């Protein structure tokens, strides 16, 4: 079954910013799905529409076969949201926040108390249950948002940059936790992140969104393979009749004076040049042939620097 289907989703904000352009996406039940994209790409807008915090301009959202507009209760009850920014009532306690959230989903107090205790304990917040949310540290607030999103036991959990501003140790324990609820409880997870390492270690499938468009939707392995290679175009000093057969590099001849080479991360340019020199090929100049995906990742990585050094 599909946990989430988005059809022709469009969003234009008041003032004219086009945040989503014809987004189509499906996420399978049980998947751990990463949504990547630079700042302002439209990730939070997409999540906002799925979770009813943003009104869509056009399109359809289906959560576990429930159309969000027609079977609103079922669709919303199957979904849990961890938003990008803290949105607690500053004066409520940790326990009140989780209990109230359960109440909004129609869960009676007695059951809500059991669930609240369970998830607060799992996230290491039980000792803090009487603390007012305003007094929590950033990391505790992030964990509280996760407990709050799980109290109605949704089948689909969406997290918008859950580990932003969280230290390495806590980040790893959050990863552990998310992996566990995905594997043991079968909760489908969609998360956005600016940390490639996070997407790499958690997500089975990844979509990349840029300027409101999904420009890539594939499994993590093939994405990483594509990202770990660089394409270069070499200009040759002398025209070349025939490419030598015994090259270890993946070389393509574009024209008599131009070659294209694919270099993996573990290979070096020095090795390439010595191999070409041995074959009697002289290179006069070279340029990096960048594709859109690489450009995008460069920007993603740049964004990463403000946060931490967690780069794959």
């Amino acid at each position, binding site marked *: 079954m599909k946990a989430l289907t988005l059809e022709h989703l469009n969003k234009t904000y008041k003032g004219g910013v086009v945040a989503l352009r014809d987004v189509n996406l499906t996420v399978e039940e049980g998947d751990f799905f990463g949504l990547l994209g630079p700042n302002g790409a439209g990730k939070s807008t997409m999540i906002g529409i799925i979770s009813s*915090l943003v*009104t869509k301009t056009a399109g359809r959202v289906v959560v576990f076969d429930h159309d969000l507009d027609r079977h609103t*209760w079922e669709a*919303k009850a199957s979904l849990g949201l961890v938003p990008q920014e803290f949105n607690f009532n500053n004066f409520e306690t940790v326990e009140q926040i989780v209990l109230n959230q359960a109440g909004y989903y129609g869960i009676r107090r007695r059951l809500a108390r059991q669930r609240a205790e369970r998830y607060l304990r799992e996230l290491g917040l039980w000792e803090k249950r009487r603390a007012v949310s305003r007094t929590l540290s950033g990391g505790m607030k992030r964990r509280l948002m996760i407990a709050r999103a799980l109290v109605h036991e949704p089948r689909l959990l969406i997290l918008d940059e859950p580990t932003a501003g969280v230290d390495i140790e806590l980040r790893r324990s959050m990863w552990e936790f998310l992996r566990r609820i995905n594997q043991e409880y079968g909760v489908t997870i969609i998360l956005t992140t600016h940390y490639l390492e996070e997407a790499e270690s958690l997500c089975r499938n990844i979509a990349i969104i840029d300027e409101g468009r999904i420009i890539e939707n594939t499994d993590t392995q093939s994405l990483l393979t594509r990202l770990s290679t660089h394409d270069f175009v070499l200009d040759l000093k002398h025209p070349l009749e025939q490419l030598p057969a015994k090259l270890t590099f993946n070389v393509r001849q574009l024209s008599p004076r131009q070659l294209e080479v694919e270099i993996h991360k573990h290979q070096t340019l020095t090795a390439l040049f010595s191999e070409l020199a041995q074959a009697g090929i002289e290179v006069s100049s070279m340029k990096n042939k960048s594709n859109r995906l690489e450009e995008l990742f460069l920007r993603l990585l740049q964004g990463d620097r403000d946060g931490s050094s967690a780069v794959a």
Partner: protein
Amino acid sequence: MYWQRTLVALGTIARKEAQRYLRIWVQTLLPPAITMALYFVIFGNLIGPRIGPMDGYTYIDFIVPGIIMMAVITNSYSNVVSSFFGAKFQRHVEEILVSPTPNAVILLGYISGGVSRGLLTGFIVTLVSMAFTRIEIHSIPITVSVVFLTSVLFSLGGFINAVFARKFDDISIVPVFILTPLTYLGGVFYSISLLPDFWRMASMANPVLYMVNAFRYGILGASDINIWVAYGLVLMFISILAAFSMYLLNRGVGIRG
């Protein structure tokens, strides 16, 4: 099943709202008790005897219903406007918006918060007034229904104000420039029969006048106006404001991007 869940959601919002004003009782419940006690001391005990009877009642007996009503109106309104605006401002309204709680239940929940605070304040002010005079209630059903409907009406007003408010100033403009004048000129301190013709006619356009008078009728058995007209007006205003509030919620005005 659906109704059960909806009721739990409604109960959750109502409880949370009550917890909010009880937690900050020094800002919510204490001030009306003090202000209204001052009104009773100054206008009732000190100046009242010099004013003499109003509509055949001692002055303090005449103003007690109006002052209770004034407390109910301001507190119902300000509870919903501050609470809902606060929820928007701190963004925790999103907790409810992501949940399956239907819009009508969100509205009812916030209104119930305004009504419970309005009625609680009215009750406190009534207790305070008993230190100054003896009240006998002419008609309990009329008194209770009028105060309840008035509280609902002004809670709805506070809700709409909060939906449109973008900054803190916006939640005090209506109370200061509209609500307070309407209440003071709504026959709380005087009978409109004292007014010259023109001002008496003008007062008839003030909806608060009808509510204050209907409430006074419930307590004293005397009113400047026909109380059935008051019921009709209040019910009409409630329907209009409730429909408008639902329209705003369904459109997501001020709360959904």
